[in-house]
């Protein structure tokens, strides 16, 4: 399911935390209620555990590399490990699986696939998470302003949203990558993978905000008519307070859902960009880099092809399930 359709329901719903159906359960906040509902949903909980494991791996991997537990860069390319006569495919069961290399070796180099994948999760999640934060932040601010102020400002932001949506994003990414990365480097960012990663984050983020802005605007349109906003207005609250202290706290539920649904989209996007040579460059592993390399080995070393694809599929599905589960939990009228 696409993200915008997921969220279409939110455009319609109003006060999430004050649903009268929740009143009878006394002594529990709406958040606690939502959490309870989420915990009851076994599939979402399982997906949540998977996501937590990925996040943990992503956080711990750099330390694993530092302390030598993970070794994503050492070569085992001698004839002992690779079949030099037959395209440097790893020797042994399923692409060289052994106790020291539980997911086998990379064809051509003999680098440890498990280490590279775990370390790749770090880079992929960092890129996807940063891009999601950029997109959600921009979308939220523009959405609130657009919905709250209305009038010309609303119209202007609305057209900006349309314009951004109609931009050929992938084409821009490819055509501008060299130029844009050079500009990022000129702005003082270290050349190489830092600049490359920043470029990917910015492009995903700067093109990813329109759907969020629309959702948020829809929410704000209803929130701004509520009594507490009226009260704040009467008391002369400054604009910034209205936006971020009065409106924003009422948006966290849809934003959280949106966040968990945008993450997997960007993880897949990173993989696609790696295939198009615009992501972080090898030998730094990202899930996309590894997947790109593995495609040509689909028949020669199936397991090597299968593992990164499987890993990406699992993480994308898990994030989506968590997102769906959260939406169901936070908005019981939505899906059930």
């Amino acid at each position, binding site marked *: 399911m696409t993200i915008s359709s997921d969220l279409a329901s939110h455009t319609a719903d109003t006060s999430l935390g004050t649903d009268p159906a929740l009143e009878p359960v006394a002594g529990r906040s709406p958040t606690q209620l939502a959490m309870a509902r989420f915990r009851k949903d076994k599939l979402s909980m399982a997906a949540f555990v998977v996501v937590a494991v990925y996040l943990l791996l992503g956080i711990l991997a750099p330390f694993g590399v530092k302390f030598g537990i993970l070794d994503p*860069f*050492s*070569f085992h*390319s*001698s004839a002992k490990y*690779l*079949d*030099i*006569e*037959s*395209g*440097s*495919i790893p020797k042994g069961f399923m692409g060289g699986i052994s106790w020291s290399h539980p997911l086998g070796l*990379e*064809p*051509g*180099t*003999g680098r440890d696939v498990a280490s590279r994948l775990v370390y790749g999760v770090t880079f992929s999640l960092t890129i996807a998470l940063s891009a999601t934060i950029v997109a959600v932040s921009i979308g939220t601010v523009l959405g609130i302003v657009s919905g709250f102020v209305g009038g010309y400002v609303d119209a202007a932001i609305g057209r900006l949203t349309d314009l951004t949506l109609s931009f050929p994003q992938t084409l821009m990414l490819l055509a501008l990558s060299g130029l844009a990365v050079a500009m990022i480097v000129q702005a003082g960012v270290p050349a*190489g993978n830092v600049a490359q990663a920043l470029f990917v984050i910015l492009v995903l983020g700067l093109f990813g905000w329109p759907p969020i802005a629309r959702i948020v605007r829809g929410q704000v349109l209803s929130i701004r008519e509520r009594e507490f906003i009226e009260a704040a207005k009467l008391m002369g609250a400054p604009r910034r307070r209205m936006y971020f202290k009065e409106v924003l706290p009422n948006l966290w539920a849809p934003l959280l859902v949106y966040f968990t649904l945008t993450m997997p989209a960007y993880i897949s996007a990173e993989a696609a960009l790696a295939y198009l*040579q615009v992501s972080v*460059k*090898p*030998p730094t592993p990202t899930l996309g*880099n590894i997947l*790109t*390399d593995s495609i*040509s*080995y*689909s*028949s*020669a*070393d199936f397991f090597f092809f299968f593992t990164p694809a499987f890993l990406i599929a699992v993480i994308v599905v898990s994030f989506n399930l968590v997102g769906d589960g959260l939406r169901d939990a936070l908005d019981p009228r939505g899906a059930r």
Partner: protein
Amino acid sequence: MVNPRKPLAAVAAAAVALTLAGCGGGSSTSNNASTKGSKGGTLYYLTFRPAEHLDPQRMYIGRDLADMGRMVYRSLVSFPVTKNADEALKPVPDLATDTGTSKNGGRQWSFTLRDGVKWQDGKAITCADLKYGMSRSFATDVITGGPNYILGFLDVPHAKSGLPLYDGPYKNDHAADFDKAVTCKGNTITYRFNKPFPDLPLAIASLRSFDPYRKDQDQGDKSNFAVFSDGPYKLQGKWDTNKGGTFVRNPNWSQSSDPVRKPLPDQIQFVQGLTNEVINDRLISDSGNDQAAVTDRVVPPAFYSRINGAVADRATQTDSPFVYYLLPNFNQMKNLKVRQALMMATDSQGWRNAEGGSKAAKPAKSIVNPSLVGYQPNPAFTAPQTGDAAAAKKLLQASGEAMPYPIKFTYNGGTPTSDKAAAALAAGWKKAGFKVTLDPLSDTYYDVIQKPSNDSDVIWGGWGADWPSIATVIPPLFDSRINLTSASNGQDYGNYRSDTVNKLIDKAAAQGTVQAQGKVYAQIDAQLGKDVAYIPLEVTQFYYLRGSKVTGYNLSPATNGYPDLGAAGVTK
């Protein structure tokens, strides 16, 4: 000379070159195709890269030079159709009655045209056609992209810019100079050079730029894809620059006038624009017309495991004309000990394994391809193929430089394979105390590395000789006088400059025989090794599949390691 991964059109003609020259007999994994084929049928040639020129004076890609030489363009002398690697690079008479007579220490050459050789319209090939063909190379404003050695060799006056005053048949300024240097007497043509050209027959047999051209067929740049044949085939209709074209029998060619070619198929069809994966997938499945297909696209390493059983009988491996190597940048890495440490730490085995192992690349002991006349392994490269990190570290420590020593390695990247191969080298260098930054470039590669201000420390390079003589390897790559200018370093990407080597290059050029030249070149190569002017990585391999109905299949040094169309046929 060649940069195998370099788009030729992007390069100044003076700096360019494409391949030629052979490969010492590679190991044929199998060669079951019968040598005796029957006449008839259609042979298919599946390939990727569209031909940029079919004009004999403008062609410079090894594949095209070889294919067109066998099908449509005959030369005074040619390399024979043979499976004997020792014979393959000895020119035999083709349009000429013999392999030429030289006078004056290789400064003057004469060839006499054979009787009965005709163009595709039935008119006889004349000495004037040969002379006209060569004159076209001098029109450097029209006839671009082709080899330009003749501009430096032919004994005509030169302007200060280094170009001859004679500017080709279109403008025809200073035509008298050319008429003096190239003369016709009956059917005998005589060339006069300003220095010894003992390897002229090798050059004629390898390139197509010495071939005859009929003046009334010449439309300058418009003739780029025109084929006016004097060989056993002629182009049917027009060449499609995207898709290719079909060659059919030329009725005005006769076997009795041609001692070289044994044309078997009635048609040879070229199909351009297919990727390695598509071509090799089709050749593995071997169905329909693909059973009668050959290709110049190597089997991708990921496909090697599918080459077994009956498919393996249709796979052949041979040395390509290319050698890949590293160039330390002498503007950056001035300390000899550091360069020695780099050489000692280079894990060329890891590089080759990442490229796909022994079917993709073999160890190289020199920048000179083993098939060239006068080849000798370079005595300087004593490090083990996997590198010796401990010995390298000692050298680096002895250099007096701070460690870790930072280096930037610039290579032609952009594919998972090239990135893995570069990472293999980086891993070896790191162990020896270098701090490596990988710098993969793609489209801009040659623009960047040819800038004298380029700050890369180590640069990847690849080269194939224009004809099987070291004179087309070492001088174009390491003669600082022809390469280094304020705007570009030519082919001397490492900015290497040595008076000793330059003097020896002059000495080699003054020798009257290819063998004598070879001896001097071996001396130069040893000096280059001592200076660590380059580090050899691999002799690139050609590993090709063919269809099951192809006969007389031969990957020969005579055709730059590509399938020899002079002998191939198809069974019904």
